[in-house]
């Protein structure tokens, strides 16, 4: 027998058409629509109102529910993604179950996208009619509560991850900070000075890094990567792959005598931290202030790993600390957390993609990050600006917008390059007295002190040429310099300026494995590949996956102050969830109609959350409501119609379809 729809109502529907100012009313004829709605079967009252979501709008609905004994509410307004929750609350406050409500999208899907007013109004009528027919069949539903594990996982140990970790740890929450490199610090640790104050990056960063290491509430795992994320908000089970350092963290005291003692007398391996401009040994520490202050062995270049026949002077000199362990294995750890913050950062644009700038072809062309290392006192050239051929530059060209604002590569602006180009111009000038030319398109200096910094750099004598660099090639005069060609648009002439050194202000891109990572965490990406925030204006740190938040450049290019602010925001949102202790989930779950399930087992393998199991004693399927996420796939697949989905029952959807198509 068909399940009796004893909750279907025969009357008592209230329909509210919102003008949304002129956003809807300007295109859809709200009066015609309201009159039409009033005539639909089952409708007790139909009204239109300027702003249904406003307090008086909400009060109007509540009053009608009480005074007119309404049994269902339909609001035709903006997108349910915006205000469905609002009006469900209104329905509940009026005394009805909040799911006796249905929303019609007249704004995003009609008034804002059609110019033909007649067609838009006809469409609106169809949508309202469908909603009125559907809502009659709605049943009362209860939101379910899911508890939140207080532990937090932060992925990425750059400034964003560090700041979020400290904020949460200081609030008393336990944090797992997982970083895939051997040290935390991220890109900021590579910078020399930060704009506009010219603070030493390491000086402001390292205290935070040490605080992370010593904080009792932070478990720091470096050389570690998340490989699998299961579960849902409040109850994530995450698998972390911990790669071997071949050095025992607890035993190593950071004396670095092993590096000194290594059989390699000279450093021979190009080191990543110095952008491959410097060299290190197979046993090394990424940089002196690395956290953890523990050495790491690179198995690709270490003789012991390659041949098994090394003297192992490192082990000898380590003595009874016995911190070196060539047998260390990779291991997988599984942690349970309630919330996750992704702070995986950015990757710099590969300048080789713009071949006419000569990066990789001409040795005197550098990227900005390489120059940061040159300029840094702990860098490969001891803070001196020395070119690959040993010369010191007398003229330098800084090329803005490399891989940004460019139809051929990335259309977006990377936001930080103007400022860091000014910074590098200043630092280069300060160190070398060279003549510096900045080739720019626009000067983007919006932050506090940024415009003032621009003026300062200009006053110091840096020459600004407004024009996109067209070409970089060896100076035909044969003096070893490079010719930079750009149209100076302010003077309407093409300039050809020979320089000793070209610095490319490369833009910010998502990490190369961003797609893989975001799939692992069940997130979406924007079209550029950065992780997608829930709303660009009002929800910049949360994502569409409850319990997972974003901080820093993984969400989009930004500078350090904005990164820190966002990291704090992400930590706050995670804290909000943890402190409340639970989250309410929509009741869109599926349920097996036990009386009539035939035990055909079709549904069992279909659930990605393993929410459906086969009961051996009942010989029927059973759904675990806690695990069900409400996608409805099993419902559509059941060949005998024996699974129902709350709020998306077959009959409700059929009514909606037929309502859309029924002739007016």
């Amino acid at each position: 027998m068909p399940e009796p729809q004893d909750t279907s109502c025969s009357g008592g529907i209230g329909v509210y058409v919102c003008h949304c100012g002129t956003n809807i009313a300007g295109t859809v004829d709200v009066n015609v629509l309201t009159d039409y709605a009033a005539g639909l079967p089952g409708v007790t009252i139909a009204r239109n109102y300027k702003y249904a979501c406003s307090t008086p709008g909400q009060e109007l609905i509540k009053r009608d529910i009480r005074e007119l004994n309404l049994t269902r509410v339909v609001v035709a307004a903006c997108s349910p993604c915006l205000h469905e929750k609002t009006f469900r609350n209104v329905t509940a406050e009026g005394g009805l179950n909040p799911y006796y409500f249905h929303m019609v999208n007249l704004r995003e899907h009609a008034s804002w996208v059609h110019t033909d007013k007649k067609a838009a109004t006809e469409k609106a009528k169809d949508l309202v009619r469908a909603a009125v027919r559907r809502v009659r069949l709605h049943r009362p539903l209860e939101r379910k509560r899911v508890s939140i594990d207080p532990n937090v996982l932060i992925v990425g140990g750059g400034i964003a991850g560090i700041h979020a970790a400290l904020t949460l740890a200081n609030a008393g929450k336990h944090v797992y900070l997982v970083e895939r490199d051997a040290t935390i610090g991220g890109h900021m640790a590579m910078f020399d000075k930060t704009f506009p104050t010219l603070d030493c990056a390491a000086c402001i960063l390292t205290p935070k890094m040490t605080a992370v290491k010593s904080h009792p509430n932070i478990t720091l795992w470096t050389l570690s990567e998340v490989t699998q994320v299961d579960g849902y908000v409040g109850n994530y089970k995450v698998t972390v792959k911990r790669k071997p350092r071949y050095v025992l963290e607890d035993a190593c005291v950071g004396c670095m005598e092993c590096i000194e003692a290594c059989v390699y007398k000279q450093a021979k391996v190009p080191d990543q931290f110095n952008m491959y401009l410097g060299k290190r040994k197979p046993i090394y520490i990424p940089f002196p202030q690395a956290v953890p202050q523990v050495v790491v062995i690179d198995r690709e270049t270490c003789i012991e790993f390659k041949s098994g026949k090394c003297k192992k002077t490192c082990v000898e000199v380590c003595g009874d600390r016995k911190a070196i362990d060539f047998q260390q294995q990779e291991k997988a750890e599984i942690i349970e957390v309630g919330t996750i913050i992704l702070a995986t950062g950015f990757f710099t644009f590969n300048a080789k993609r713009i071949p006419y700038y000569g990066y990789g072809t001409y040795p005197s062309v550098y990227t900005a990050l390489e120059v940061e290392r040159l300029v840094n006192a702990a860098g490969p050239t001891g803070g001196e600006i020395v070119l690959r051929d040993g010369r010191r530059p007398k003229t330098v060209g800084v090329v803005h917008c490399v891989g940004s604002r460019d139809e051929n590569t990335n259309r977006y602006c990377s936001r930080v390059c103007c400022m860091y180009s000014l910074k590098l111009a200043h630092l280069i000038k300060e160190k070398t007295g060279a003549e510096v030319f900045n080739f720019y398109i626009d000067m983007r200096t919006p932050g506090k002190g940024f415009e003032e910094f621009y003026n300062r750099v200009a006053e110091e004598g840096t020459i600004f040429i407004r024009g996109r660099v067209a070409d970089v090639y060896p100076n035909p005069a044969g003096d070893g310099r490079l010719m930079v060609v750009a149209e100076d648009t302010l003077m309407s002439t093409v300039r050809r300026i020979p320089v000793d050194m070209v610095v490319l202000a490369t833009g910010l891109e998502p990490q190369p494995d961003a797609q893989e990572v975001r799939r692992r965490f069940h997130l979406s990406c924007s079209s550029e590949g950065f992780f997608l925030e829930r709303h660009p204006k009002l929800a910049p740190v949360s994502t569409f996956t409850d319990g997972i938040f974003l901080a820093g450049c993984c969400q989009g290019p930004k500078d350090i102050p904005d990164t820190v602010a966002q990291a704090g925001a992400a930590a706050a949102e995670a804290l909000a969830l943890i402190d409340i202790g639970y989250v309410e989930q929509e009741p869109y779950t599926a349920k097996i109609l036990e009386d009539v399930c035939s035990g055909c087992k079709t549904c069992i393998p279909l659930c990605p959350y393993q929410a459906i199991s086969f009961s051996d004693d009942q010989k029927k399927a059973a759904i675990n409501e806690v695990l069900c996420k409400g996608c409805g796939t099993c419902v559509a697949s059941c060949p005998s119609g024996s699974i129902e989905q709350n709020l998306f029952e077959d009959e409700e959807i059929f009514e909606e379809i037929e309502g859309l198509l029924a002739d007016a």
Partner: protein
Amino acid sequence: MPDANLNSSQAVAYVGEQPTFEPRIVAFFCNWCTYLAADLAGTSRMKYAPNMRVVRVMCSGRVDPQFVLDAFAHGADGVLIGGCHPGDCHYQEGNYKALRRFRLLKRMLGQMGIEEARLRLEWISASEAEKFRWVMNDMAEQVRALGPLRLLPAKEVFPEEVAV
């Protein structure tokens, strides 16, 4: 059992004096990708043909082939299913199920003489408002060219003068 409508009262638009056929297309959009793309097209004030009527579901995997057939049976000239790109389903794999059902349904409808362009599946992610707009216009155009679906009604009055 539902009775198929004779599609005599199709939505019509008037161009001058001539009524032109405007197709009615029912669209099933998943909440997390395509529905949001449609919203984004709205907030970006993109303009497109008004032929689509959207039914919101949580996942394209919820789209039962019965819904598609019910839409055709009740007067839809076209049906569109919108979901997340393969690999990006908010619920992991619902869109793969939708894809498999769609391929078989399309083949079967082909056997039944229902033209290809009437049933369409598109993967549109939340940020692809431009693609969304293009699909709206393109599908309306294609179905318009095919004309109304015109299934026969269950009720048939037997005309006396007919031979057989």
